[in-house]
C-alpha cells in the first residue's frame, strides 16, 4: 500500500535507524546534532527513541547493569585528535610569525639605540 504518508514513513524509518545507531554510540557529532534537531520537532521519533531507551534500560537492568541508561558517546579517534592538534599548532605558529613580521614584538619598530636619548652639540 502506498499513500500520501509513504514518503514520510520512509523518512521516519531512516530516523529510527539513526536513533538505533545513536543509542549504540555509532553516530558522529554532526549526525547526533541533526538527530537532536529532528527529535525536537518530531514527537513520533522522540517517542520512538524514548521507547527504545526504556527497552534497553529494562534489558540492561535485568542483566544486572544499573547504569545502562547512559547513552554511549561517540569516541574521538586518537589519530583524528592528533591531526587537529597539529593543524591548530601550525596555524598558531604561522599566524604568530606573520604578526611578528608585520607588527614586530614588544618594543620593536626601532632598535634600542634609536629609542634612546641623544645629545648633540650645535
Amino acid at each position, binding site marked *: 500500500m502506498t499513500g500520501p504518508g509513504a514518503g514520510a514513513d520512509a523518512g521516519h524509518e531512516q530516523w529510527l535507524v539513526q536513533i538505533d545507531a545513536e543509542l549504540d554510540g555509532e553516530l558522529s557529532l554532526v549526525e547526533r546534532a541533526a538527530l537532536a534537531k529532528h527529535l525536537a520537532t518530531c514527537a513520533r521519533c522522540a517517542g520512538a527513541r524514548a521507547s527504545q531507551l526504556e527497552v534497553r534500560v529494562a534489558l540492561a537492568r535485568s542483566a544486572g547493569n544499573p547504569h545502562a541508561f547512559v547513552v554511549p558517546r561517540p569516541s574521538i579517534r586518537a589519530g583524528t585528535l592528533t591531526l587537529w592538534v597539529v593543524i591548530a599548532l601550525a596555524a598558531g605558529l604561522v599566524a604568530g610569525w606573520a604578526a611578528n613580521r608585520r607588527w614586530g614584538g614588544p618594543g620593536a619598530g626601532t632598535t634600542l639605540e634609536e629609542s*634612546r636619548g641623544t645629545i648633540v*652639540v650645535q
Partner: protein
Amino acid sequence: MGLSSFSSLLIALSTLQGPGTRLTYRIRVIEPAAVAPRILASGRVSGPIDSDMRLTLRTDTAEVEALFQVTPVGDTVSLAGEFFARRNVGRSRRGLPLWEEDTYRRLVRLTWSDTARIYPFGVGKGGAEFGTKAPRGLWVELILEREFAGGEARAAEALELADSTQDVRLEAVVRPRRARVILNLVRGDTVSAPRPMDLVTGEPPRVVQLVLRGRATTLVVSLSRPDPPRSARERVIALDADVVCLSVAPADTRQPLGTVCGRLNNVARQLALPSGDTLAATFSWPGWR
C-alpha cells in the same frame, strides 16, 4: 712635573673657582611642527658649580628622567647625562600596560654658551644622521653658562610651561656638604632643649650632651652619606641627593645605637635609645654663608 701637567693642574684648579662661580642650565623644550617648531616650556636651573639638573619629560607612551652633570675643563665643559627611560610597549594578556625600563649614560664635550640639543626620546631611523632625518618627538635645547656671583650659592630653579598639558619638570640637584641637625631628647610629653649643630659629612664624630629632666645624656654623632640606592631609577637620577644619615653612639663605647637617615626637609626622625628616651633628629639645609 712637566709643564703640560702643571698647566693642566692650574687649569683644573682655576675651574673650581670656589663658591664665587655660579652655574646655570638654561633649557627650552621644543616640539617639531609643520611650520615652525613650538616651544613647550622654558626654564633655568642655577646654583653652585657642582649643581646638577634633573629633567623629567612624560608622554602617554614614554617617560624620560635625566640627571645632567657638568665638569668644567678649562674653557670647555663636559656634560654628562644619566638617563632613566620607561617606554610603553603594549599590554599584557590581562590588559595591563607593559613598560620597558632602560638606563644609559651620554657624555659630550662643549664650550660654555654652546647649545646642546637633547633628543630624550631618541632620533628616527638613521642614527646620528638626524641632520637629514626628522627626530622622533620633541627635543630639549640646553645652554650652559657660568658667571661670577660673589657669595650667592643658593640653588634656584624656574620653569615656564607654554602648554599646560605637557608634563615637564625641572629640578636643581645639590648634594649637601653640610647639614643643620637639631637634636632633641623626648620622653613622654617632656622634650629637652633643642641642640642645633652644623655637621659636615665625613668629618670626625662630635660629642653632644642633651639634658632631659635634669639628667644629662652624652652621645657621639657623625654625619654620613646614605648607602647607594638599590633601585636603578633612584641611583640614576640621584633621588637621594639631599639625604644624609646621622650615626649615633653612646659616649663610653663606639658601639652605635643606630642610624637615622632623612632628607634636609625639617622633618624630625626618631631613634629609640636604650635609656627609654627617644632621640629626635631634624635635618635641614644649613644657613647660607
